């Protein structure tokens, strides 16, 4: 063909080619959705990293829904909050997150309502609805939960001549003293920076106190709380606990309990595999009981919950997210997670299925509906950090000063 026509002809051919390709390519490109999931890592190392758990679900989901791919990313707990903040700041919103829930993202209208992305939001544990809500609407969906109980070493109790686990603080002190006389730690009190807020909360509850009043006002330095810290100081000074509780994290105390060195502590289900692994205590050597309060045992417990949240971005992926969440929140996966990490499920049906599989943990599951939770406030994150860093120093002659400064942090707001 003539040279002048060649470019024209070539151009025409390539255009036709491209159009044909485009017609074929357009179809799958339009239907293929990619969801990003950012989850907190509950594992202790790569072998039990939550990446494995979520990838399994993502793969199974993709097999069932080939047009939707889920990209899984796990972040360790220390960095989780920052990671999500970063993504939000850069407007690179994740589609689904699993971990902490932030009411301020709901405040800024970034999240889907739970009812938008779940077929059956009523299956989510009602006890944790408020914690995941903003202005009465639920955005955070409970995924995994835990509750606390007092663990005690039956063998040490028998040795020390204690008939039954303590119900009041005074009984606790006496019993701890008896166990100390045996050369063991009476009561294990982890007030180290890792999760001091949990241990603190349980003690504050014991005196009818807490972090906030019933109508949501910060009340950290209330007279009851000061009284509680005074008692805790008395307990520590009497030598009934491990030395310097403000520097001891849970890992140390839990391990020592598993080794039979500790008489009692406020623990959670994650302690069970640690006991098994240590191989020192038989099942009959330890038991659980309600946590002791000032005048009687607590009828509530601390319930902790981690949430799933779904980000709107441009609103185009709602269907895909709904499909994925319905899939991921099935009972079998809830039970899998609970068993893998020794926590409890976040859905009611999941919890029922879990109790069938692991009846020993039934009492923990039963305690969940009555559980009290951490304050649902945007400023809780700062207050939590302050408590973690400083509460150890409240064990001493001036607990009020420390509580005052934490109260200030709360009132200062964000």
């Amino acid at each position, binding site marked *: 063909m003539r040279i002048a026509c060649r470019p024209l002809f070539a151009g025409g051919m390539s255009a036709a080619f491209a159009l044909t390709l485009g017609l074929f390519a357009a179809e799958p490109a339009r239907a293929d959705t990619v969801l990003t999931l950012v989850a907190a890592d509950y594992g202790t190392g790569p072998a039990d990293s939550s990446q494995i758990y979520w990838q399994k679900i993502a793969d199974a989901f993709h097999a069932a829904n080939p047009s939707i791919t889920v990209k899984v990313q796990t*972040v360790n707990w220390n960095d989780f909050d920052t990671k999500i903040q970063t993504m939000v700041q850069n407007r690179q919103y994740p589609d689904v997150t699993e971990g902490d829930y932030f009411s301020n993202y709901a405040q800024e209208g970034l999240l889907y309502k739970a009812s938008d992305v779940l077929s059956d939001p009523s299956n989510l544990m009602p006890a944790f609805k408020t914690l995941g809500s903003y202005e009465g609407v639920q955005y955070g969906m409970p995924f995994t939960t835990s509750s606390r109980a007092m663990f005690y070493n039956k063998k040490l109790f028998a040795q020390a001549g204690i008939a039954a686990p303590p119900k009041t603080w005074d009984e606790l002190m006496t019993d701890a003293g008896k166990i100390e006389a045996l050369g063991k730690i009476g009561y294990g009190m982890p007030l180290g920076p890792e999760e001091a807020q949990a241990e603190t909360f349980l003690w504050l509850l014991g005196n009818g106190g807490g972090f906030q009043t019933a109508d949501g006002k910060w009340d950290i330095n209330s007279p009851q709380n000061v009284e509680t810290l005074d008692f805790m100081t008395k307990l520590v000074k009497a030598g009934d606990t491990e030395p310097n509780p403000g520097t001891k994290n849970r890992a140390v105390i839990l391990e020592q309990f598993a080794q039979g060195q500790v008489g009692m502590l406020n623990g959670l289900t994650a302690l069970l595999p640690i006991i098994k692994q240590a191989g020192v205590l038989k099942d009959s050597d330890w038991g659980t009981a309600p946590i002791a309060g000032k005048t009687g045992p607590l009828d509530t417990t601390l319930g902790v919950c981690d949430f799933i949240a779904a980000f709107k971005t441009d609103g185009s992926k709602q269907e895909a997210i709904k499909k994925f969440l319905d899939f991921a929140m099935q009972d079998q996966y809830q039970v899998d997670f609970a068993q893998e990490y020794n926590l409890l499920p976040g859905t009611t049906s999941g919890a029922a299925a879990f109790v069938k599989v692991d009846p020993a943990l039934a009492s923990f599951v039963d305690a969940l509906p009555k559980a009290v939770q951490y304050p649902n406030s945007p400023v809780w994150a700062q207050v939590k950090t302050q408590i973690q860093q400083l509460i150890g120093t409240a064990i001493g002659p001036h607990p009020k000063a420390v509580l005052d400064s934490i109260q200030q942090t709360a009132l200062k707001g964000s």
Partner: protein
Amino acid sequence: MSATTLRPKPWPWQRLVYAGLAYIVAAIFLLPYLEMIVSALRPANEMLARTYLPSHFDISAFFNIWKTGFGQHLRISLEVASGSTLLVLLVAIPAAYYTARQRFRGRGAFMLLVLVTQMFQPTAMLVGLYREFLDFGMLDSVVALILVNAGFNMAFAVWILNAYVSAIPAELEEAAFIDGSSRIGALFRITLPLALPGIVTALIFTFISAWNEFIVALTLTTSSATEPLTVALNSYIGQYQVDWSHLFAGSVIATIPVIILFALIEGKVVGGLTAGSIK
């Protein structure tokens, strides 16, 4: 240090005293790492036993640790350390050579920059580093770690290499010029081989510094898949449990590449430092 004919021979017992003291010092410096090895060899149920040595040695931790994805972290550390070292050498050698041989405008300023920034450590500017790489979207990347480690070791490398190159007479290169060689040719064939001890010193310092670097890696990585060894080992200290045996086994394994590197270049390190202190 050679003895002259006039110097009296030291008493034999003097040597023994020196040797004895030195061995005690050496033992003190090795003891903690011995404890690390012994603890890594403790069986799980004797981890918290109050004994110096376990009843028997259990090497399973050294094998099990690979199942926990340790290899991935090892690889990342290798990438970061070798990448940083390579980058430092690639950039510092030309800069040091040119600065040592050539007077150019800004030479004084550059030497001052090198001197001053040698004092800076990433710890002092973590917040800035974090926000900078955040803005560039380079968190959780090996490249970011390579850049930071290279950047902070650059000044020391330039300083050492400059001292070394300055000590090599320019006549040697000049002879090569007369023979028709280019500047770069002279650099490769004459100067670099002679400056090898300095290069090796800079290499070692950078590699070890990048290999053992902790806080920057901790700050710039958020997911466990992108952590180098130091951060990964730190995460064996978990929420509910401390995985002591894997922690110590991993620490021992992490020391091996460094030891190998030392074995390859022993003797040159002290020489390298000598040149650096002659100002």
